[in-house]
């Protein structure tokens, strides 16, 4: 029964406040431990027994508590700064997906021609999250598709024996820059055409991110079936994506009311939608042709 003796030995050492051979942590700060204010040493002795029994070191326990308070303080500061730029609730709406939604949305991106109802459904002025509405845009698919695209680009370059780790970062930052440029151009277009609907930055980011699915499919087909397969897949995914974008943006830009506004503004919105759709095949080709030689 070395346990109770060790127990009692620690206790006697603590009461004596001079610790010849405990662990170093306890040894260094025993002086500081005895100078705690209030009735801490007296009940602390009993607590120290239990804590000692549980953790083996009351000073480590205090250090852990201090460290966790520092960490939570730092986390609050980061959250505050982040909340100034990005609203977390709005961002969480875009990631509220489930497996059925992702599967149906991927199918819709590849074959949108038979889908009938393109309206985003609302429930008391709040748009339904993607889990309950197939037409709602989400950011999960674009994010995953972007990461998959970067990995696939690395693999394709490796097959062509042109791979190096810097190329991966370069590919990722190039694609990211094109996305940023496209979102900025779309924002400018939405501002100039005075679209009154709730097409926020994240909506536009979601709609421009859907092209990565087409890119991945084109590159995969190109790797499996050669250059002809690449061009066939490019044509198919481009036309599907263009149809998907035109239908989605038309219904999204019109908003909850289906009046739309005066004729010149509607024409501007139509040009904006068509321009955004026509840009997609170009950028898909630009970002993937060097992977499938």
């Amino acid at each position, binding site marked *: 029964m070395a346990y109770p003796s060790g127990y009692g030995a620690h206790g006697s050492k603590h009461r004596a406040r001079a610790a010849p051979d405990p662990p170093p942590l306890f040894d260094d700060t025993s002086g500081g431990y005895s100078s705690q204010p209030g009735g801490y040493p007296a009940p602390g002795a009993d607590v120290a027994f239990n804590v000692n029994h549980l953790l083996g070191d009351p000073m480590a326990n205090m250090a852990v508590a201090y460290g966790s308070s520092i960490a939570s303080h730092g986390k609050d500061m980061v959250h505050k700064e982040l909340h100034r730029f990005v609203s977390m609730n709005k961002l969480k709406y875009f990631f509220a997906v489930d497996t059925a939604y992702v599967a149906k949305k991927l199918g819709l991106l590849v074959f949108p021609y038979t889908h009938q109802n393109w309206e985003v459904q609302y429930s008391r002025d709040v748009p339904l999250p993607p889990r309950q509405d197939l037409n709602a845009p989400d950011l999960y698919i674009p994010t995953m598709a972007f990461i998959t695209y970067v990995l696939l680009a690395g693999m394709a370059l490796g097959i062509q024996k042109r791979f190096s780790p810097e190329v991966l970062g*370069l590919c990722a*930052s*190039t694609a*990211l*820059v*094109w996305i*940023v*440029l496209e979102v900025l151009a779309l924002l400018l277009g939405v*501002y*100039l*055409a*005075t679209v009154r609907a709730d097409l926020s930055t994240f909506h536009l980011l979601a709609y421009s991110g859907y092209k990565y699915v087409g890119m991945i499919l084109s590159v995969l087909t190109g790797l499996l079936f050669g250059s002809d397969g690449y061009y066939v897949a490019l044509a198919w995914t481009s036309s599907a994506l263009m149809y998907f974008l035109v239908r989605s943006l038309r219904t999204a830009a019109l908003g909850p009311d289906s009046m739309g*506004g*005066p004729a*010149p*503004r509607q024409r*501007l919105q139509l040009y904006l939608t068509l321009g955004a759709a026509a840009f997609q095949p170009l950028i898909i080709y*630009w970002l993937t042709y060097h992977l499938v030689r």
Partner: protein
Amino acid sequence: MAFTLYSLLQAALLCVNAIAVLHEERFLKNIGWGTDQGIGGFGEEPGIKSQLMNLIRSVRTVMRGKKKN
């Protein structure tokens, strides 16, 4: 074309600078894009030209701070 984020930052800075240095008297008034020529009443539809003029004026105001307009 391999872009980096730094080149995007450079391009954005140059574009914003280009908009900010458009001179009001010498240039914008001569092509009819001055700030006092655009406000055509409070109709429903601002139109693309007045939106553009508004945008240019806002960029100039933000970028110039408290200096002379």
